[in-house]
């Protein structure tokens, strides 16, 4: 067991990947000598050289598009997109090419490209640096989307993503990059399957589903609720596509109440998908409507008001109160 931050855990996961797989390589803007704007690739170019840690031209479509070509030649590229809001120049390549290549070729071609995207708000930054666009990608068949919330998952999930033969997008909770935790680099343990949800805390009165940056918030809300006498189960989704409905369903069958929290706007978001599926799967177990806690239907607001936008402990507790009032 080693204690490290999420950023360091991803760094170590990438280091382990590069060392184990000679066909793996990293691509992105400023990921070389600088180590990326969040220093996630710090030191890797010195260790593996510029053919394995590639500082690319400043062009996101170019990064994804050439990564697809490298994958077709048998390589496993890991692309870093500098910020969530900057993925859109590459959106065409991701949705029309990367996601569809396997199906288009009747399974003859695989494109195991990994795309790392720091996402989410709470860092007081300028426009395009705080967004949560995961639903746009989850809606696209052919992609897998995962998001670690702690260093141990981060270390293993980045390696598992590279090993997966499908394209995988990793949404990294950027405001939690410096969150420390224990990492077992010897074995993934319960993190063996990156596409399964984890129950972080057991409870009987309600379930909170969260992922990425809101997982610590959900845990804190559950702690606060306990002081009021409510036993709340917390699920870290970990994977957004595929989504582990079995784990969520089983929890709701036990608790009868569900709150889904994410930073992304609620309209058309992952929370809506979970609410719909759970209402189909566990209708007779539900004691209250599934309640979503998320961002508003607006462009991500300016930094000075983002605290009013981002779901926090109180917003989750308010939703919990509503659920418990039925």
């Amino acid at each position: 067991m080693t204690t490290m931050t999420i950023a360091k855990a991803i760094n170590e996961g990438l280091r382990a990947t590069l060392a184990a797989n000679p066909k793996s390589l990293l691509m992105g803007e400023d990921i070389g000598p600088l180590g990326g704007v969040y220093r996630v690739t710090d030191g890797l170019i010195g260790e593996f050289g510029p053919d394995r840690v590639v500082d690319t031209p400043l062009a996101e479509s170019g990064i994804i598009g050439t990564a697809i070509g490298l994958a077709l030649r048998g390589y496993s590229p890991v692309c870093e997109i500098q910020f969530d809001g900057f993925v859109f120049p590459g959106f065409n390549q991701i949705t029309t090419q990367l996601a569809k290549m396997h199906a288009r070729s009747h399974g003859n071609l695989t494109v195991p490209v990994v795309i790392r995207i720091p996402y989410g708000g709470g860092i007081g930054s300028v426009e395009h640096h705080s967004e949560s666009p995961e639903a746009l990608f989850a809606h696209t068949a052919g992609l897998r989307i995962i998001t670690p919330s702690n260093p141990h998952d981060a270390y293993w999930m980045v390696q598992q993503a590279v090993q997966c033969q499908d394209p995988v997008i990793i949404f990294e909770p950027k405001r939690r990059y410096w969150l420390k935790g224990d990492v077992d680099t010897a074995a993934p343990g319960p993190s063996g399957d990156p596409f399964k949800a984890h129950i972080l805390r057991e409870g009987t009165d309600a379930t909170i589903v969260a992922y990425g940056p809101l997982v610590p918030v959900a845990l804190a809300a559950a702690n606060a609720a306990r002081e009021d006498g409510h036993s709340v189960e917390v699920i870290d989704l970990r994977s957004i596509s595929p989504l582990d409905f079995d784990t969520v369903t089983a929890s709701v069958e036990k608790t009868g109440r569900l709150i889904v929290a994410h930073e992304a706007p609620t309209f058309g978001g992952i929370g809506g998908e979970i609410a719909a599926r759970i209402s189909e799967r566990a209708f007779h177990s539900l004691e209250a409507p599934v309640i979503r806690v998320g961002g508003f239907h607006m462009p991500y607001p300016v930094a000075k008001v983002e605290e009013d936008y981002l779901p926090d402990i109180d917003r989750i507790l308010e939703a919990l109160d509503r659920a418990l009032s039925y």
Partner: protein
Amino acid sequence: MGTHLPSTEFDGTAVDDQREADAEAVMGQPPAQMVQLLGPDGKLGADPVYSSYADKLTPEDLRGLYADMARIRRFDVEATALQRQGQLALWVPLTGQEAAQIGSGRASQPQDYIFPTYREHGVALTRDVDLAELLRQFRGVSNGGWNPKDTNFHLYTLVLAAQTLHAVGYAMGIQRDQKLAAAAGNAGNQPDAAVIAYFGDGASSEGDVHESMVFASSYNAPVVFFCQNNHWAISVPTNVQTRVPLSNRAKGYGFPGIRVDGNDVIAVHAVTEWALEHARQGKGPVLIEAFTYRVGAHTTADDPTKYRGSDEEDAWRAKDPLVRLEKYLRAEGLADDAYFAQVKADGDELAAYVRRTAHDLVDPDIRAAFANVYAEAHPLVAEELAWFEEYSAGFAGGDEPSDQHGAAAKAGH
């Protein structure tokens, strides 16, 4: 014929003349010159660089180039007819561009990898793709149709220019393969390879073309950008896409740009062979602009009479790629009436094969679509497939829940 004749001598349209003049005004230098060896009159000229490549073509090679062009034109006619008869949903004709496609395709080596757009039927022929398989996409039974690993001829890409970036990435992979082989002491065991990225004058405006050329230049990737300037992006003429000859854009990226007479199969072959050698030798990318013309419609859904005059089409028909090579072969005594009769018979046989095969294409089962969304098991796909099987089984005489496509095994847990 002379060498490097200014393209203005061939354009025959005021629009092209004006564009060349604009180009000169913008760049302060003469417009790009066009490499031509075999002119419309069927006479072979000379070029200080490319004649040595053309000289390598044997009489058999030349007859082969003609036969390929004739076969693909016959195929094009047949596919268009199949569309008109309702056997295909759509067809994308290539007539007029035979020399650009056959000349460049025949210049490639088996180890090279080709990224086509969606009109490169002639290149597909040179890569031994079963032409009947090309029709699968247009009959609506596949979004691909062949396995690119068999021929190093990638699937058609319909989102314009997306494939140019795939081509550069693939070329970056070739570079890394060479380094890995060298590190393992296996340098030279595999023949050097290069990549060809096809695109058109319309797609040249897409940002991905720019990004692909930036990446190719930055990493000196072994890729040849082959732009077929067929003068029309559906209904929009080239001068809306560019005010300078497209080949001149290479200068901005720092690699050679060559405009070649795209209706001259000998020049196209020579220039492409030179460019591929250049790339394979590690000298970096090349842009080739094949100056040609789409004689027919963009697709069978298009009506060219709404946007261009028949005089322009007639002017380009006078530069037909097959006619000029036939003139040359006859004048040089390299082919006779019997040869051309045989070529025609071979074309008819190909057409009959394609027609027969198109008719015989069976509709796919949607279970195959379930099976190929992901390479690894995916619970949502498995759940939806299971639902579909149960739903289908509810219809008397409906789909049996058979699993001939392995969908359950692949999509399941």
